[in-house]
């Protein structure tokens, strides 16, 4: 048996899953005390269950997202080692920034040394301003982390109570500005995230639950709860990932579909291409800044069932805020829900009030209540379908760097529009017909997010870079470095090495992974040239345990 819990800003949802069948669901308002909300939801779904049969619990949460959005965290300073390149004035990291001397190049060679006196001065300056949390981020630090580590060692010596996060661990991919943002967020959220993890642990201990516990990541993978404190930012924005995986579990396998989650004032759209949720090409965006966090490509459209409708000249338009519920449910202003009621597409609320709202809205334009409702309907549907079309187009236009990648990119179009979320019922068939798709509102749609958490498969990854000229390899995620034989090392050995490290890592996390299931997500081999000669080879590869869902939900029973 598996349990999925989605701790959202408004509701905490939970489901209990057994052999692909939903056994129980819960929906509770999220309270200020997270522990209490989690316990209440767990109590509902675990009623009459032998806790020993519980195999796994997966949490998804937006608490970290809310923390960042609300700026409710300690101030973080960034110590940057950018070296030459882009002018530093183009950096805008929304944090206190000190630029240090020093530079590493793309091959990991030191081209400018650190200046220790300058580092000490920068640190005492920060101390004077009251900073205790710092991110140390160097350009090309994933290729050589010596500078970052040296700065960290100085901090540890002079200010042992400070929290220092290093860029090569927080942001191991090539992208210095995103590495800086990711490191800064890691620094800000590690403490509060630990508190969240502790509440979860306490909640489980109180109920004597000993099942494996995982946390959902923004890319739809999961991390064991204990290890997730290493990379707290990976858990931001796992909400959209949860509902997307939920849709995946509730609809047929291998289809290309659009998951539409229509809420009160926003609609989240995700794409599932041939059964796989699409990843965002650029990483999650937090507070307008790009990070190195892999995330599903989810777009938000500022329209939902409770959006306020009004006239602007001779046009009906939305306002992106919520003034209250729909007019037909006692709210102050006309909303798309009123339009649905007039059109007979929902049974919610009072029909006469809905008609009154649409009449008032349409009267200045000479429209009847029915005409105004029709107009509103097409406005909502258009704004969503336009965004869906744009997402497919953007996916097609994503950069490719190899000929085979470019050539294999076939045009795909969805066959299903799956609706989840409170406002879905009335709009989905129109959206689907506009896109030439079949509409599906899966059963359990209101708790699709918790289902997504419950079915999410545990994932881990390992990135290896081996340099035969220098005679060593390193594992990016662990900062581990080992020797290789310059002569006999080859691509097969590089892969074996990476797989071995991944299996070892998985075992450490208590995960059972078969060698054959490991996916190679990135693989590059380059000759290194000195003058005209090949001086060595560079192997770059990433392997991961498979992402996705552990099983589908049987739908027949509803």
């Amino acid at each position, binding site marked *: 048996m598996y349990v999925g819990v989605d701790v959202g800003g408004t509701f905490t949802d939970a489901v209990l899953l057994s052999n692909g069948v939903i056994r129980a669901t819960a929906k509770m308002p999220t309270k200020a005390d997270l522990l209490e909300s989690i316990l209440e939801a767990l109590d509902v779904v675990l009623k009459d269950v032998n806790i020993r049969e519980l195999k796994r619990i997966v949490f998804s949460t937006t608490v970290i997202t809310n923390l960042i959005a609300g700026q409710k965290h300690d101030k973080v300073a960034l110590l940057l080692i950018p070296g030459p390149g882009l*002018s530093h004035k183009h950096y805008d990291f929304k944090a206190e920034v000190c630029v240090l001397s020093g530079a590493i190049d793309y091959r990991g060679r030191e081209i400018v040394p650190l200046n220790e006196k300058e580092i000490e001065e920068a640190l005492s300056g920060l101390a004077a301003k009251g900073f205790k949390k710092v991110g140390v981020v160097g350009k090309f630090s994933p290729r050589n982390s010596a500078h970052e580590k040296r700065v960290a060692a100085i901090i540890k010596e002079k200010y042992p109570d400070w929290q220092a996060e290093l860029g090569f661990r927080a942001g191991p991919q090539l992208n210095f500005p995103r590495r800086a943002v990711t490191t800064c967020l890691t620094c800000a959220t590690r403490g509060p995230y630990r508190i969240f993890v502790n509440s979860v642990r306490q909640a489980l201990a109180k109920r004597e639950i000993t099942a494996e516990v995982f946390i959902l990541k923004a890319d739809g993978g999961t991390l064991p709860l204990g290890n997730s404190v290493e990379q707290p930012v990976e858990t931001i924005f796992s909400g959209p990932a949860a509902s997307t995986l939920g849709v995946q579990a509730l609809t047929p396998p291998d289809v290309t579909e659009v998951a539409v989650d229509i809420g009160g004032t926003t609609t989240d759209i995700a794409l599932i291409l041939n059964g796989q949720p699409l990843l965002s090409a650029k990483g999650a965006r937090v507070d307008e800044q790009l990070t190195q966090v892999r995330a599903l490509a989810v777009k938000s459209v500022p329209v939902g069932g409770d959006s306020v409708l009004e006239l602007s000249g001779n046009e009906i338009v939305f306002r992106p805020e919520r003034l209250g519920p729909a007019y037909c449910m006692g709210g102050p202003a006309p909303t798309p829900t009123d339009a649905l009621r007039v059109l007979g597409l929902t049974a919610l609320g009072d029909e006469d009030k809905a008609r009154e709202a649409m009449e008032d809205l349409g009267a200045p334009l000479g429209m009847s209540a029915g005409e105004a409702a029709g107009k509103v309907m097409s406005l909502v549907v258009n704004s969503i379908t336009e965004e869906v079309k744009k997402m497919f187009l953007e996916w097609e236009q994503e950069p490719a760097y190899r000929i085979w990648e470019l050539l294999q990119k076939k045009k795909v179009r969805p066959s299903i529009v799956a609706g989840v979320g409170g406002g879905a019922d009335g709009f989905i068939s129109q959206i689907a017909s506009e896109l030439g798709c079949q509409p599906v509102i899966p059963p359990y749609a209101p708790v699709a997010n918790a289902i997504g958490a419950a079915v999410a498969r545990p994932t881990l990854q390992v990135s290896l870079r081996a340099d035969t000229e220098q005679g060593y390899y390193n594992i990016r995620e662990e900062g581990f470095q080992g020797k290789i034989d310059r002569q006999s090392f080859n691509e097969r050995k590089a892969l074996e090495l990476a797989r071995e490290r991944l299996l070892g890592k998985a075992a450490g996390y208590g995960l059972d992974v078969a060698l054959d299931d490991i996916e190679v997500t990135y693989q590059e081999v380059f000759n290194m040239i000195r003058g005209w000669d090949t001086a060595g080879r560079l192997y770059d590869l990433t392997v991961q345990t498979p992402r996705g869902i552990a099983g589908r939900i049987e739908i027949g029973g509803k």
Partner: protein
Amino acid sequence: MRESIGKQTGLIFFPAFDWAISPTHPEREERLLYTRDQIFEEGIMDLPQISEYAPVLATAHDIARTHFCVPRVEDQTTEAHLIAAGAAILLADEIASGRLKNGFALVRPPGHHSMRVVRGNRGFCNINNEAIMVDYLRRHHGIKRVAIVDTDVHHGDGTQDIFWHDPDVLFISFHQDGRTLYPGTGFTNEAGGPKAYARTINIPLPPGTTDESLMYVVDNLILPVLNDFKPEFIVNSAGQDNHYTDPLGSMKITAQGYARLTEKLRPDLAVLEGGYAIETALPYVNMGIILALAGLDYTYVREPDLRPFKESPDLASDVRWTVDKLMRQWEKRDLVVPNPEHVKGNYYQQVKSIYYDTDGINENQLEKLRLCGNCPGYLTIDTKATHGYGRTGGRALCVSIPFTACSSCRAEAEDLYEQSKKIKEYQHVYLQDKPSDIFLSYDSASGQERRSEG
């Protein structure tokens, strides 16, 4: 110049990591590896001033508009070539439509040694990306006047050949003196055909030229000429082998020099050409060019081993002398009469011999231009080739009608094409009808004609 406020710089980065001429050839897959590392690490693609595009493939039709590929386009191009040309076209399309401020196609393989007739690979090039893009712009955006500034260390002999007779395309190439470097051409007296005199400007520079003399050339020759010519679109064939670390060239230009050059030229579109110092030059030079195009501060871009270069007073005065000479040539551009040695009746003709170094092919051409009072005149090329290893490439007749041809030239060219199909010595006969965008190729062995229409 286009309105550019608030618009982005478009980038296509296509390193073609899975394509090489051969495993040990300088034009190989890892050429842009460290450039990729530098651009990605700097986060260039995330800047609000930059928009990254995925390339598309150019069509055989796009290529036939510019080249005569013998026997067919398909025989001379791989997907990598179509992608490089397609990338240039895509960005040009966006710029000409006003959606982008300017652009940079960071693509390989390069193209500026590819001439009008293509029988194989020359100087690492099969098809001329910039020329194909320029002809596309003229066809699809009605752009008439174009300037191409070739800043590769090698003479852009392919681009020169293609636009030699075209009065509406200004071709300027500076490069290391042809007496000291491949392809051994690009002297000041190579100035264009009788109808386009001085619209080809070659600026041979002595080995060891630094940023200082290069800026002198830009300020005192290139910019004034561009100012007179008033192009609607400026292309930069952005070779990077003038860099002081390049293994092929012997010049002393720095990344800062390239960035300043870009800033002064203000090209609408830059297209990568050569540059083989894949570690020591390309990552920095490409950064400099991108930042300069996007109007961003490039002064922090610096090679790790950068040191000040001094050039001799002799070198500087040598460059000044060349600039003066070319400026005088430019001023006399409309006063020159065709050399009578080359005039046969109504035609201007010249014999050319072309060597394809990569493929070991010798080609001999007889080029004939109709001297017409109403238009630039149609062009024919009678070409014959021998492979180094004895196999003949076959004789072919290529007829090209320019975009602005008059009706009498068009009729005569069409007639010539039909008559030549009956001549047994020609294995292939081609008609490139640019005004109607129809390209015909006739294969005498099979008696079949292929027709390409847009």
